[in-house]
Structure formats: C-alpha cells, structure tokens
C-alpha cells in the first residue's frame, strides 16, 4: 500500500545532502574558497614567501619604503622588509588569534545559551540579564583598557576577545534552544521517559549545532577584525607582525607622507579578504539553514498565455453568467525542471447569488485556482491557458491598472487564517476604510466614512468600540469576521472565501458559516467557497466542484455529488468522511496519498489510489464526461455511460 516510497532511491547521507545544497549556493561557495586560499597561505607561509621574515639584518635606509619591484613584488616597509613576506606570515597571526578567540567565545556563548534556554526560570533570567549588560558595554574601549592595563601579548588578546565576544552567540543559542525545546518532539522525548541530559544531547544539541557553526564563522571574522583594530591602535603584540600591526607601523611611521601606498593597501587587503570570505560563508550557511524563497507578493507576475482558439469559441455564447472560468490551466515554473502542472483545464460558472464549493485535499490546486481568478499568483505561477470572464470582461486580458478596479470592488477575498491576512500595525477600522477610499472615489473622508466602517463591523457582529483595535486584540473568530467586513466594504458581487473556517473551533466555525450564509441572502452575494471539508459543503453550497491533483474530478449540484457521485474519488472521499447520523459505521480510507504536483502520474491522477483502476487509467488521462444536464466527471469508466 505504501510502495510509493519504496521506489525512491535509498536515503542519502546527511553530509552529501548538505553538500548538494551548498554547492548551488554561490555566496557560501565563494566564501569557502576565499577562506581555503588564505588558510593554505598561512600553513605554507615558509614555502610561499620570498624572504625569511626574521632577517632584519643588512637593512639600510635605502631599503625603506621601496615601491614594488622585481625583487620586492609588493615593495618594502618602514623597516626595509619585504611587504609580501610579512603579508604572508601575517595571515598566520591573524587567523590564529581569530580562531582561538572564536573558540573561547563559542564555548562560553554556547554553554550560556543552552543552559539559559533549556532550564529557564531564574537561571535564564540571571544569565540573560548578564548577557544584556555585556551587550551594551562598548566592547572596543573595554578591550583597549584591559589590554593596555595588562600586557599586549597574543595570549592576552585572544583571551580578551574571547571573553567579550560571546554575547550574540549566547542570545542566538538561547533563542534556538527555546525554539527547539518548545517543539513537540522534545515533549515526546520526555513522555518516553528520557532524562534532561539525554534530551540535551540527543534532541537539543543536534538542532543547535548548525546555528553554532554559522555563529562560529561570523565570530571568527569579528575576532580577526578586533585583533587588527587593536593592533592598529598600538595595542597588538609587538613580537607578532599581524596585518593590523603592519598597518600600525606603516601609518605611524610615515607611509602616508612618503606616498608608500603599498604598505597601507596590502595588509588591509588581507583583512578584507578574510573577513569577506567568512561573511560570505556565514551568509551562505545561514541561507541554507533558514531557506527563504527570495520571492514576495509584489514581484511581477508571469505573462499570461492564452490560446487563440479559446477566444473564438468565446464569441458565440449569448447570456453570460456573472463569472465564467474557461479551461483555466496554471503551471508553477520550476527552475530547470519541467513546470509543475498545478491546475489543468478547470471550467466552472457562477451565477448571481449562487454559492459554489471548491473541494479537495491539500495540494489539489484549489487555492492556486482561487488566486489565479484575480491574478494574485506567486511569481512562479503562470496562467498557461484559459480565461476568466467577469460580467463579460476577460480578466486575463486586463492590465494591472484595469484589474485593480475589479479587485475588491467587484470580487473580494476572505483569506484563510485572518491573523496573517490583516496588517498587524494598523487598526482594523483603518484597514476597512482603506478599501472604501480606494474604490469609492467620491466617498467623504469624514464622519461618514467612520459610520460606514462601524456599519460594516456591526453587520458581521463586531461591536463599534472594536473599530480602533489592532488585529492582535481580536480573537480568531473576530478576525475572520473583520476580514468578512472588509470584503464587504465596497459592495462586491462575488466573494471568494478561501478556507475561511479552517483552524477555528467548531462552534466559531458554525457562527462564521451562518454569517456568510445570511449575508449571501441579505446582500445577494455570489460566493466561491474553497474548503477541504465535505460536511461544510453539504450544509451550504448549491453546486460543488471536486478537485483532485489539479483537475476536475466531478462537477455537479450538491445533491448529485452527495447522493449520486460517479467518480470513484468522490465516492471514496464520502466514505472516509465521518457521518454523525451513522455513528457505528466503520470509516474507510483511501490508500496512498494525494500526488505531488511535481510528480504527477502519467494517466489518470487518481489511478494509483483508485480501487477500480484498469490498465488504461495508468496510461491515458481521462476527459471530462458530461453525465447529465449539469453533471460532469473525469473517469474512463464513465465513457460508455455518456
């Protein structure tokens, strides 16, 4: 039954998996290469450098600040020494101090962070307050004072940087520990009977470690910078010629006035190289750790592809329904790979005052379809076929500006999870008023606007005094009501409701559904109701479109769907849905899982899970067959019964 997984390749080791991702991250790769080069230079310094760094003998005044030449590729410095040689050996000092100091600070920060995050309470309070204090004390002046009062030796510098640079690590590790600790698998580990040590070792550490690695990279770069700064200010170890020390000597001993730019540029270049390499590596690792699609809602959408053939058929029809979706297909562009066919050839109509249900499991393309109606798809989404007619206008052919007069004014949306769909830093009333101002140009912006907002809020059952509250002050149910009030603000003809009751309690869900139903009757709204819940659909809808894997499985009026379903998927789904009127009935489940959009089966998309599938189903995609006046289903088995 779960053979799906058996067919895929054997599990890949974690490191290989990491390397595969890392390789395609240019930032991290460039950083790593830069770092490897400098480490190589530091290790093989004696081989690479043209002169012996300790030879200060035989230097005459004529050797001081010589410009680059064949003998001295990068010139000589204030002591007549070869700049290239000192530069190569300087890498050793800077890197040693950087790595050791980072090591100390990571140990302190890591231990503090994990203890504070894991144990919480007073321990956490104490440790974090101490960290906060250390964080505000300006670190450079403090380091300068401490090193000036003690002795500027490499050991002291490492110690001071290490003891001062742990604060950010401690904070990062603590918040990561807190985040891991609150995850359910830690609770499950406790439920199994694991002790604290076991949980820290097996569950917290493995998940904190990646953060610590990123942090390590960044702390090394800060430590290298700190060392060079201290050295430049004359607080470096006089016996170790680091890059900062070289700059200190050059700046303090006349490189500026003699115009010896090479003595100033070369060591600085070394510091920038190391710090930039580490920063790039750190950023790259960070990106892998917290992958973020660098996409957002304001990116330009992809051009719409419309077939000319569809437009011709279009002109024949007579009286038009309010909304008419014709053969709409949507792809997700998948860089390099063939596009994912998220929605294919969906058609439906919506009349005035009608409520149509769009039902399907997660990943069936219902939300994509809904967003495409108003062309709100994410930037990877592309309409590749079909049209959306609203009052006879083809929405797919409008410009963004023209479309903006249809959005919300004619067709508005109630989104799922209204917490995130409302702007958290603006009041609810303000956000409702915004829609009115935008779409009703002449609307007076005085008391009448406020009255209209209050009227809308009261329409959905929110008291007027909540108008100036922020979304976080509302409960989940109230936010959903506010979202509905906002959707009604410009008296639209159509409302698209995208899972408006998911994540709400049953009673609140019932309240919202009843509200929508009564508003529909009162205002004559047409509603597209997107949901995964067959029960809700049965309670409210006039017609139902059942989607599976991006295509229409069955499309009919609500009574037909529930009592005379013909598509095997609809039939099986109904059997899996619990029915309170028959409590003793054993539920049956559909074996397997819904298909992933990037790995759709070759034939009928339901075939791998279908109890009635025959050979043909695995090879050929079925057409949508008309079974009655307004009853359609896509299944090979229904071909004969047309």
């Amino acid at each position, binding site marked *: 039954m779960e053979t799906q997984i058996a067919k895929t390749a054997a599990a890949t080791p974690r490191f290989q998996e990491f390397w595969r991702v890392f390789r395609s991250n240019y930032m991290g790769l460039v950083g790593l290469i830069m770092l490897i080069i400098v480490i190589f230079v530091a290790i093989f310094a004696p081989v690479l450098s043209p002169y012996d760094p300790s030879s200060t003998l035989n230097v005459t005044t004529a050797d001081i600040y010589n410009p680059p030449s064949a003998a001295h590729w990068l010139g000589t410095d204030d002591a007549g020494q070869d700049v290239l040689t000192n530069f190569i050996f300087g890498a050793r000092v800077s890197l040693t101090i950087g790595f050791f100091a980072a090591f100390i600070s990571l140990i302190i920060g890591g231990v503090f962070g994990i203890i504070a995050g894991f144990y919480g309470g007073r321990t956490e309070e104490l440790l974090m307050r101490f960290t906060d204090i250390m964080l505000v004390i300006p670190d450079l002046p403090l380091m300068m004072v401490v090193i000036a009062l003690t002795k500027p030796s490499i050991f002291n510098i490492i110690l001071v940087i290490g003891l001062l640079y742990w604060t950010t690590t401690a904070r990062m590790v603590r918040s990561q520990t807190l985040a891991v600790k609150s995850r359910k698998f830690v609770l499950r580990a406790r439920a199994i*009977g694991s002790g604290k040590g076991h949980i820290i070792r097996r569950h917290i550490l493995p998940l904190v470690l990646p953060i610590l690695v990123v942090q390590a990279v960044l702390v090394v770069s800060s430590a290298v910078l700190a060392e060079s700064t201290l050295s430049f200010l004359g607080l470096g170890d006089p016996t170790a010629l680091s890059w900062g020390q070289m700059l200190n000597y050059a700046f303090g001993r006349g490189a500026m006035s003699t115009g010896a730019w090479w003595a100033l540029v070369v060591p600085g270049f070394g510091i920038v190289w190391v710090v930039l390499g580490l920063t790039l590596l750190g950023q790259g690792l960070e990106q892998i750790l917290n992958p973020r699609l660098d996409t957002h809602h304001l990116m330009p959408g992809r051009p719409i592809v419309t077939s000319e053939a569809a437009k011709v058929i279009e002109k024949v029809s007579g009286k038009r329904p309010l909304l008419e979706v014709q053969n709409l297909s949507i792809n997700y562009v998948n860089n390099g790979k063939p596009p994912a066919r998220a929605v294919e050839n969906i058609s439906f109509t919506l009349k005035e005052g009608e409520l149509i249900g769009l039902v399907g499991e997660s990943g069936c393309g219902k939300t994509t379809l809904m967003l495409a109606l108003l062309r709100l798809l994410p930037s990877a989404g592309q309409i590749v076929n079909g049209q959306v007619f609203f009052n006879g206008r083809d929405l797919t052919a409008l410009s963004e500006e023209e479309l903006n007069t249809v959005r919300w004014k004619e067709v508005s949306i109630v989104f799922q999870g209204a917490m995130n769909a409302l702007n958290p830093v603006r009041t609810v009333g303000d956000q409702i008023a915004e829609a009115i101002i935008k779409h009703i140009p002449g609307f007076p912006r005085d008391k009448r606007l406020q009255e209209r907002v209050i009227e809308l809020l009261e329409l959905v059952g929110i008291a007027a005094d909540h108008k100036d509250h922020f979304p976080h002050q509302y409960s989940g149910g109230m936010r959903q009501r506010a979202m509905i009030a906002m959707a009604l603000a410009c008296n639209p003809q159509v409302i698209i409701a995208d899972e408006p009751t998911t994540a709400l309690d*049953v009673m609140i869900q019932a309240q919202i559904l009843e509200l929508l139903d009564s508003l529909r009757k009162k205002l004559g709204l047409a509603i597209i109701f997107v949901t995964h819940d067959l029960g809700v659909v*049965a309670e409210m809808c006039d017609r139902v479109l059942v989607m599976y894997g991006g295509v229409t499985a069955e499309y009919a009026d609500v009574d037909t769907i529930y009592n005379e379903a013909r598509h095997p998927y609809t039939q099986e789904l109904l059997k899996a849905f619990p029915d309170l009127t028959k409590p003793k009935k054993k539920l049956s489940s559909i074996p397997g899982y819904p298909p992933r959009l990037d790995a759709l089966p070759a034939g009928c998309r339901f075939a791998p899970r279908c109890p009635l599938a025959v050979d043909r189903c695995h090879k050929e995609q079925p057409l949508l067959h008309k079974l009655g006046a307004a009853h359609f289903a896509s299944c090979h088995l229904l071909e004969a019964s047309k």
Partner: protein
Amino acid sequence: MTKEHFLEVQGLKKYFDAGRPGLFSRDVRYVHAVDGVDLQLRHSEVIALVGESGCGKSTLALLLMGLEDPTAGIVSFEGRDITHLNDNERKDLRRKIQMVFQDPYESLNPTQTIEEIINEPLVVHGIGNNKNERDERVKKALEDAGLKPAEIYLNRYPHELSGGQRQRVVIAAALVLEPEILLADEPVSMLDVSIRAEIINLLAELRITRQIAVIFITHDLGSVGFFADRVAVMYLGRIVEIGTMLEVLEKPQHPYTKALISVIPVPNPRLRRERIILQGETPNPIDMPQGCRFHPRCPVVMATCKVSDPPFVALSKTHQAACLLLVK
C-alpha cells in the same frame, strides 16, 4: 485496587499563574485550565475526550502523562497514586502510559532516522539485552503501526515520509514500549480527510490486538463515532457530560453537547437540519463565570444557573451530565 478501573482520576485541577492584574494588586490571578475532573478508564477501553480549544483537554492529557504537576487531585494507576512520583518511579510508569501528539510534523526530531526514533525509548529504558533483540522489537513496532515492510523505513528521515506515515512512526515509537494506555491528542486533525480514517482504524485495531486502552482527545465529535466506547465532553476545564458513545451522540442531555452535535456538518444535503449556534466565544478561563460555567452562552439558561454550580446527574448507569435542568 479496583480491577475494573485501572486508571482513575479524582478532582484533578491545574491552575496556571496568570500574573497580577495590576502593579499594586495583591491577588494573583489563575488560569483554571483543568478545574475538577473525575474520570475512570477500564482495561482496553476507548474514551473520547471532546471539547473546543481552551477547554483544558490537552492540559488534562499532560497531567495524566505526568508532564505537568497537578494543583490538586489524584491520578491513580492500578490503585497507586501517580501524581507524586520520584524520577525513577515516573520513568517506570512511562512504559505503561504513552502518548501520540497532534502534529506529526513537529513530534519527530528531524535529525534522527526512523530507526533511531523507535529505538530511543528502548535505549532510555535499557530494554533488550542485545542489538538483535532491540532490532526485532523496533521492526515489530513499525509493522504493527502499519509500516510494512519495516526495512524500507529504518534508515529514512522524517521529512522523507508523508504526514500519515509520520503519524504511524509516532505511534510505533509509543508501541515499542508495549504500553497499556495510549493518550492520543488530536492525532488526526492535521491530516487530510482521506488519511484520517486510516489512523483511526489503526488505533481501533491496536486496542483489539494489544489490549491497549486509548484516551482519544479531539475537537471533532464526528470522528469519534465508531471506535469510542465512551465519550466525555469538556467545557472550561470540566467534564459536563459523559456516557457511552450512543448515549452521548444520540441522546445528548447537556445543552452544550446538544449544540456541539447540532453544528457538526452532515455530509448529505438532504439531511440539513436546524443548528443550535451558541453566540459569543468561550470565556477565558481566568475569570470563570459564577454558577454554572456554561450559563453565559446557554440557550436555555434559567435564573438559578447564574448562582449555583450544577452537580453531576446520573441519567443511566453510564450516562451523567452536569446541568440544573436535569435535577429533579
């Protein structure tokens, strides 16, 4: 020790500190998460604990697991009070009571393989003399949880599995300790409808093949139907109605249960019925209403409801509800 009730809960309460209402205020306020719950569980019995979010059902589960300490009350297992155990006794008890969590995406450590996940409880408890013995138990647990053949899954990571498969892994990790009680906290609410029945059927099977008693916590009365023996309905920290599955679903007596059942959608448009929709939202459990805690939302509220807290009224040998309308 009563043989029949091997898990017994008496007057269980859990209050969380909610801070002071004001800077100079003396009294500390409390969240009454669980506020006096009595419950008995028999061997291999399935009880469904139903309620909306904030009714205290999840806190009750954590109390039963010993993952939270109760403010008052007793939980006894096989006649022994288990609310005040030391770490070793607690650890031994863990082998008897196991838990399945709501979110299968969150309840598996992403850095462990399936084998490590299932093997972990055995290592923690030092079960099994050698690796072979442990491997056998791990495989048996996986196959009992419906992941056959086990070998395919052992070296995989959770992210390579689907939601339903992950929930099976969580169940297998609980089964490997051979528990007597399984607490399932909303085990199917995050799964697709077509997968839900599969997990519920698995739990129903286990109570028959392994004699495991199940406490099934859910907000969805519809899903408890065919495998729960008894149903308990919770509201604001307390059980308001308890009875056999058919008694509660077909003859509900408490107005809250009635409303809850009436709003559950029936998947048949021909059976659309009158719904009792309660207005407002569940009050926050800090400022508990006086009298009956349901009275502010009750459609059939009486004057006395605002004053006196209703007692449990026995309606049959197995059916009880806490409502003043039922007091004769």
